[in-house]
């Protein structure tokens, strides 16, 4: 009997690990709570990518909701979500704003020329200073901002078809229902 103890102890551990895996599938381990959720988006004033002398501020965008998509030409995952965004943009229900992050403008333009642009508006944050105010961890990230300038939803990582259907669209629908 004594010699069975290590085996029994180990089987208890296996039970615990099995539980751990199950628990992780139920809870998103990558969910990083953003302190900005349901708070006003930070004020910003950034140049447009194609017309750098014209700047866009937070106030300019008030009045209608938009999905702010942080991307960069150097970011591989952005290439993964790009076709998804391109296909979804017309039926999204909100304006898609491209936030070009820590990128050389020439690289960004070449990348958009190659892959096409789903964005209604493109702003550039070459230094990444404003992104710090948004709490951007890296590209890609997406922020859903409502007509009053409040962040309603945030997604870290690429928007895959699954993320689009299960997270982004429901968040947009919930927001539009509340403030038509």
């Amino acid at each position, binding site marked *: 009997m004594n010699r069975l103890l290590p*085996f029994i102890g*180990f089987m208890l551990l*296996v039970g615990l690990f099995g539980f751990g895996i199950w628990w992780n599938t139920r809870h998103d*381990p990558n969910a990083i709570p953003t302190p900005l959720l349901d708070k006003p988006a930070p004020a910003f004033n950034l140049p447009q990518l194609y017309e750098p002398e014209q700047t866009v501020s937070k106030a300019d965008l008030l009045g209608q909701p938009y999905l702010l998509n942080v991307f960069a030409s*150097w970011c591989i995952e952005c290439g993964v979500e790009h076709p998804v965004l391109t296909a979804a943009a017309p039926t999204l229900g909100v304006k898609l704003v491209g936030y070009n*992050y*820590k990128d050389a403008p020439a690289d960004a333009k070449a990348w958009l020329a190659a892959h096409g642009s789903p964005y209604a508006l493109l702003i550039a944050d070459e230094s*990444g200073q404003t992104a710090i105010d948004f709490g951007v961890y890296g590209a890609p990230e997406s922020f859903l901002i409502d007509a009053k300038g409040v962040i309603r939803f945030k997604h870290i990582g690429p928007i895959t078809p699954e993320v689009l259907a299960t997270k982004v669209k429901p968040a947009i629908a919930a927001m539009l229902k509340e403030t038509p």
Partner: protein
Amino acid sequence: MTPELGQLALILALLLALAQGVLPLLGAWRGNRALMAVARPAAAGQAVFVAIAFGILVWAFVHFDFSVQYVADNSNLELPWYYRVAAVWGAHEGSLLLWILILNVWTVALAAFSQKLPEVFASRVLAVMGLIAVGFLAFIIFTSNPFGRLLPMPGDGADLNPVLQDPGMTVHPPVLYTGYVGFSVAFAFAIAGLLGGELEQAWVRWARPWTNVAWAFLTLGIVAGSWWAYAELGWGGWWFWDPVENASFMPWLVGAALIHAQAVTEKRGSLRAWTILLSIFAFSLSLLGTFLVRSGVLTSVHAFASDPRRGVFILAFLTIVVGGSLLLYALRAPKVAGGKAFNLLSRETVLLIGNLMFAVAAAMVLLGTLFPLVGDALNLGRISVGPPYFGFLFPLLMLPVVLLMPFGPFLRWGKGDASTLRQVALRAGIAAAACAIVAAFFVDGRLKAIAGVAALAWLGVGVLMYALKRWRDVPRGRRYPGEMAGMLLAHLGVGVFVAGVLLTESLSVTRDVRLAPGQSERVGSYDFRFDGVHRVSGPNWQADQGVVTVSRDGKQLIVMHPQKRTYPRGQVQTESAVDAGVFRDLYVALGEPMDAGNIEGAWSLRLYDKPFVRWIWGGGLLMMVGGFVCAADRRFRLKRTVAAPAAELVPQETRA
């Protein structure tokens, strides 16, 4: 096309591993020599195909083949070639491939050097190694293919995590894995012994150097990891008790116990069942470490954790390997167990106490590491225990080990004698007390530091006394065989390590300061003058580099250059400046500029004076050297059929 060849090579390796794992076992069972003879060629063939796969992945990195997803994720055009090679094991898939490659190196070595073992036993050992390889090859092929394609091929890749772009981090994983995987040899021996229902002392003698080498590599790996964390993370700490560190520390603790248990079993035949159990535990904990790090059960913020299939696979593998071994142990251990009885006052007793302490410490670390999971399971929320838990319990458990260590060598096998012990205790005790009193004047009566000095004196004098005894009692040439010298070195290493830890912890001075160019700050007896920041660039990074001039009593000692690097993908990495010394390290980490736009203004800086911090790694390196020296003992390599009874090893007094 080439990456697909890599995958094909892995599949062929898996088939050969299956042959190596199954056929020799059948052969050993049915007494079929032809089936047993499959083991060695199958092992060699498997190693060739794994090496080909590994070579292809290296080649893909060196030649920027971004059509391979893994290459595109972990390297880019600007990454220097040496970090591109290191990037092979910079993430999940590649590090798994490295694991398998190292397993194959061990297996081939085992196949080559096991000619002297009885055929049936050697076949079983090699088969167990084959079955382990089956599990890992299946894991990599079915869940973690490093050769997956990324189409269309991007023009450039992402980046190797900048934290890993450091010389220490390039060697750390291979060395650590060599240690982890090395315990598979002791494991295979234990399983083969259980299967056959006997464990000859001579076979244990044959296995000992392998365990010692594995443990020494693991020691080096942990030391390298600790040194890297210290130099790279900018916190000036050398151990954080985080799950990944604990994953490597648990097998180390059990491995240390195993080394000593094997010595007892080899020399006296006692503790057989315990040696077998420890062999299973040491390798199981290596696997468990892999599971904890790779499954995402604990380190859930890591990106590679997101695939639950991987977790399920490793858990199933772990259940079969560890659960199966422990069940086998429960069924067969009574048949294998046995050995000579020993007195309460004997070398066996001291070694057993040390063993139990190491085993309990490993269990304690395991419990602490799994605590967040237990919290989830009992619905208590995410609770975790940190350094306070480990920092309190671990020294408590190691105290008896340190106190007993000098006595071990002086005690005889079977039955010791108390008068020698009294003499050792008296002399080492007086030395420790004297050193403690002297030290007290230098360290302002700080208890931890005094304890560190006393521990070093206690262990150091113990080692010295035994070395002297050998010098007096034993004729020249036979005084310090490898096994003896290795033991003395490793035990001295423990003393140096303990002294380093306690002195650093009690005497270190840390200052978080804000300095404008030209301003100075006094840390301990050193003056750190900040001379501003300028831009520099390296092969694939740009950095703000600070200039800090350190002086003591008005005499300039050194100019230090801490950096804050920015890598092409926007990641920021601090590169601390460390002035290493035998008796103290000076350490400067660059924080943030006070005014974000103006790097020429004031900065926040972190300044450390860390006395004796090198002794921590020095002690670890001594332990490592001890492990290698011990493994090199000629006695382990004597040319004789090891199946013969080891009568001449039994000391005179017990034969009567």
